[in-house]
């Protein structure tokens, strides 16, 4: 099983900013956990996973319209909102 990883790349994928101390700590701890995972690499396993046995999904539910949370309820819990809409930092730069 492949070992070792690039903590900077992972942090970027996970959208986490880590301090130098965090990087060292998590790298060491994750390496330890991955070493423990090696039992999986050595195991004799069935060729395919049939997880559908565990998680049996019901047939599609009836298509009955229901009342969603209104914009008032949604914007009330948003970190920032204006005029009934959620506001975020500028996404697109000005053209000028």
């Amino acid at each position, binding site marked *: 099983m492949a070992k070792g990883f690039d903590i900077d790349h992972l942090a970027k994928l996970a959208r986490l900013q880590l301090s130098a101390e965090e990087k060292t700590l998590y790298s060491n701890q994750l390496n330890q956990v991955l070493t423990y995972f090696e039992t*999986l690499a050595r195991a004799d396993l069935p060729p395919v*996973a049939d*997880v559908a046995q565990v998680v049996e999904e*019901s047939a599609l539910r009836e298509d009955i319209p229901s009342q969603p949370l209104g914009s008032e309820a949604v914007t009330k*819990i948003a970190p920032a909102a204006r005029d009934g809409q959620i506001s975020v930092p500028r996404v697109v730069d000005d053209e000028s």
Partner: protein
Amino acid sequence: MDKSQFLVWLMTNPDMSDALHLLSATEIAQRLQAGTLTSRALVDALLARYHALNKKVGAFTYLAEPDVIAQAEASDLRRKQGKALGPLDGIPVAIKDNIAVKGQPLTCSSKMLAKLISPYDAHVIEALRAAGAIIYGRLNMDEFAMGSSTENSALQKTYNPWDLARIPGGSSGGSAAALAAGLVPLALGSDTGGSIRQPASHCGVVGLKPTYGLISRYGLVAFASSLDQIGPMARSIDDCELLLNALATPDARDMTCFDKEQRTSLPPVAVNQLRIGIPRGILDKGVGQEVAAATRAAIDFYRSQGATIVEVDLPSSDLAVPTYYVVATAEASSNLARYDGVRYGHRSAQATTPVEMMTLSRSEGFGPEVKRRILLGTFVLSAGYADAYYVRALRARSKILSEHLAALEKVDVILTPTVPTPAFKAGEKISDPLQLYLEDIFTIPANLAGLPALSVPCGKSQHLPVGFHLVGAPLSEKKLFAASRVFEAAHSYRHQQAPL
């Protein structure tokens, strides 16, 4: 006090005004129905106890007294008018802080959601309200249910009522501690790898992880969706079953929740017909001496009652913990991607661009264990590694499931300890995640296989409670309850009080 002493004490204390917290939900229901107790009087007694003990135990993170009193008075009024809604009407149920209650905090014990007020009720809360139960306060937990000691809560510490220097277990540590401290008769927990059963064992209470699909997850904050289940926790088997019956109803909003036709449960089995499987060599694997002794005593008890004890083979048991930590972290890294600072939860005040907003909000909002698991889950799903880790883990999960189903063809239940060792001291394992992951070695397979599993108090290791663990075939909850009720009736553990 043993059971007979307790009964004598009960009979010589007809007033009971100062001991309402000791009653089981079943006993409370009988008194409410007989008119010898009101919900208001019960709630007043529990609130007094909350004020006296919650600081010491740290179980509750939130309790709205006026709301609780109003619910109790509404219940008493219904009863007076002959409109009581059922056995749970007027009985308080405390809620783990990852289950949505409209108008109340939904923090998951995380800084990320510290200010979130839920705009809606979870399905289980709707079901409890329909049954007349009192939605009673919110319980501490490991952040986003990730942990086995409740030490990962960003809000507060929770202490084991049996020994305040020790952890209550986790992640439903607040739920187990509240029950053991007599702060509430019933509680909801959630279980992804043992988060109901491990704290139940550590605090000497009963906890069930139901069959995957039995209880709707609508309104449960997602950690690992293919493993998560809400479940009942209580101080007795009867109470645990009473609560389960109210929660286990169909709900189209969770597509993995069984519909009406899929809910045929397996019938209970008389103890002299019961076949109990013991995994070969189970007590040799790092199980504490006193835990092993209590488990052997439970096995001997069942044998003396006429149950058949057989050894079963579960050769892939060693794969359960690594398989779990690949599957659970993979799903968590995906589920927790929603915390981006946009729609709800923490948003960093420092961010000037959208990417900064996501990155800084997540870095400031999540605690260390959540970050660790997101990184691990991101790694096992990342290009070049997904086949070696995630896909292999899914194949191992299949194997673990087929081995369990094969064993459960031959036996009704599989019995093991719930946790290898009793509750450890606070801080003892916080810097060693791998050691902490091994707490769940006996509870994880039931989540991977979607099977129902119950932890039942069965003894002590010195002064600390110990539980045994029963796993059954899908929808065999009645079998688990019936089997454990025989044990409970013959032992005094249910009436033991934590020394607070």
